[in-house]
């Protein structure tokens, strides 16, 4: 990557702005659905950046898994829980000011640190590594164990989710418990 302003830099700049704009929008948008859309915008911007960085596989995953699976699930939940209560009317928590102060500090310290921190290792540019084929080969060769473990993790997540969902069946127990506690 060069120092001069290249077309790449402009590209990165635009999508960075896009990503940031999405993130900032998430702050202010009232409706969760719109927040979700803003997040998706951010994610897509990032996907573009990944692609430009040559991480095509990752860019694809970003779109497929994140936007395709996670956010869809999220949007589903948002639609399911369309409650217009205080969480809707009042966007911000009582800690808005404190949070923003924290934001300033954190952004300051992180950005300052990241800007000043340069990788100590000499960059090795290997354009070919992250093509789909090569990456897959590397993955399957050296990192296959993570693939297996990912399967375990997802299985566990399924079990966990189903367990939590099952609890709803016990709503009656819960109501009884609450009554008893109120009697106390």
């Amino acid at each position, binding site marked *: 990557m060069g120092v001069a302003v290249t077309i790449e830099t402009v590209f990165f700049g635009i999508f960075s702005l896009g990503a940031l704009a999405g993130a900032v929008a998430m702050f202010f948008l009232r409706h969760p659905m719109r927040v979700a859309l803003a997040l998706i915008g951010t994610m897509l911007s990032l996907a573009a950046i990944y692609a430009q960085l040559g991480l095509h596989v990752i860019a694809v995953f970003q779109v497929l898994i994140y936007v395709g699976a996670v956010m869809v699930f999220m949007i589903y939940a948002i639609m399911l829980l369309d409650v217009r209560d205080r969480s809707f009317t009042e966007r911000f*928590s*009582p*800690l808005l000011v*404190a*949070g923003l102060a*924290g934001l300033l*500090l*954190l952004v300051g*310290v*992180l950005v*300052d*640190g990241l800007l*000043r921190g340069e990788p100590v290792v000499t960059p090795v540019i290997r354009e070919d590594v992250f093509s789909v084929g090569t990456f897959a080969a590397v993955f399957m060769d050296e990192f296959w164990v993570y693939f297996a473990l990912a399967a375990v993790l997802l299985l566990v997540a399924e079990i966990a989710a189903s367990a939590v969902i099952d609890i709803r069946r016990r709503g009656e127990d819960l109501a009884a418990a609450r009554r008893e506690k109120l009697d106390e």
Partner: protein
Amino acid sequence: MDGMLTLLVLLPLAGFLLNGLLGRRLGTGFVNVVGVGLPFLAFGVALWAWRTLEAGDGAPIVETVFTWAVVGEYSFEVAFYLDRLSAVMALIVTGVGALIHLYSIGYMKGDEGYARYFAYLNLFLFFMLLLVLGRSLLVLFVGWEGVGLASYLLIGFWFQDAAKARAGRKAFITNRVGDAGFLLGMFLVFTFAGTLEMDRINEAFAAGLIPVGVATAAGILLFIGATGKSAQIPLHVWLPDAMAGPTPVSALIHAATMVTAGVYLVARLSGVYLEAPAASTLIAVIGVLTAFLAATIALVQTDIKKVLAYSTISQLGFMFLALGVGAYGVAVFHLFTHAFFKAALFLGAGSVIHALNGEQDIRRMGGLARRIPWTFGTFAIATAAIAGLPPLAGFFSKDEILWFAIASGEGGALWLWALGSLTALLTALYMFRLLWLVFLGHSRMEPETERHVHESPVTMTSVLVVLAAFSVIAGWFALPQYLEPLLALPEVRFAWGGWHLLQVIFAVLLALLGLAGAAWLYRDGGRPADELWQRFRRLHRVLAGKYFVDEFYDRALQRPWRWVSDRVFLRLGDRLLIDGSLHGLAALARWSAAAFARVQSGSLHWYAWMTLFGLVAVLIWVWRYV
């Protein structure tokens, strides 16, 4: 013979144990046999021991009983030491003691604590013998404290009267003050002499190896002990109060024996005092002042026993005066004679009290001479003896003291003599005052009391007679000369022996003057004296108030100490500063706990903010200097 002294000491102890443990159950007879028999037996043993001593021509008899403690190179042994001095003391103690035990049978008859009384009395004898026979200061101290204990118990014998119990406590505490000095003196002596055995201490000091400063300090410290026990200024305050005990006790402990322990101590350690002229001077000064001041107080006391108590203090002052001018033998001589006449006086007073059913106020007596003649007779003899009328006992000893007060080459001084002589005059005055007010003149008794007046039983009167007899003859023993090998008399400053004769004549004149004065002032129930006092009302108040020493101690020592204990130690120190700060810390912990609980508010936003805060903090921290 081996074990003789041990036997002497143990006899009363056996009496104490038997009476103390079994007396209540086995009855009066048993108590009498044990409680009175054993002291007489002890007297017999004492006589035997004395004979043995004399057989050996006065060479000290040492009897080691056991080793109390060995610490490193130091050994503390329990050993008895009999020389002429301790023999005289032992004889006085057992002799007068045995008589008073006998007297007590009548006096204490029917008392609830009869067995207890004899047990205590025996205990006293035991400790007193320990005191006089102990070879080392340690054993002496054991006896010293022990007689204090016995005194405490006997003063508070009728413990249900809180005032009496309090008097016992006062005696004990005051003595303890002296004991503190005693201990320090003992430590100091030990540090230099490396031993506590008194004969060796004397040797060590006599060898002149010990600095004068140390000898002086040790002398003064030990003398502080003596002032406590012997009721000298400034620790004399307990003795008058000690009269709360049964009268025989006053006679034995607070007149004849225990209170003279201080005199004995100083005489015993004459080797130390010979090396410490300054300490000796102090003793003389304290002695004569005590003698004088006590005598002045005695002048206005109205309680028969209190008069005698102050008289005791005064006489002890005389003894210390003698000690202070180096006339140790003379002091012991006065101790000896005093033991008899003062015992006789007290027991006589006891007889009076007995006769009057407990009445002690001399203003409500009078005219008893005819009603209780035996008592009167013996009392009169003893009074004459203490007043110094020749040829009675007190005359000889007191005269010697006054003579050495001026003539001694070791501290004799005109003013000592003058004050001493004045005191002698006062002595005669207050003693005859007592005699007049109690026995002569017309009766001022309550009618109720008067009806019951009766002469005491023979166990009591016989003792009075014996003691009166000794009050007459005790002065004829040349005790100072007998003790001379042990306690050298100081050299006399005046070349012409005739001075002594003058002094004798003067002293007798003083005694007679006192007698006459008393006879004049206290005729007619003491009205002339009252009129006289009317004129010196302020002085009377001071004297009747005993110079307000008690009040002074109360305000200057006791109350401040209580105040400090209560306000400073307890309230300020313990409660406010120490516990207060601890409770403060506990409150701080509770406060922080509450603060932490508030932080844990349940709000997820807040929790996230805390995390955010933590992150920012650690990042800033680690990136601080890069």
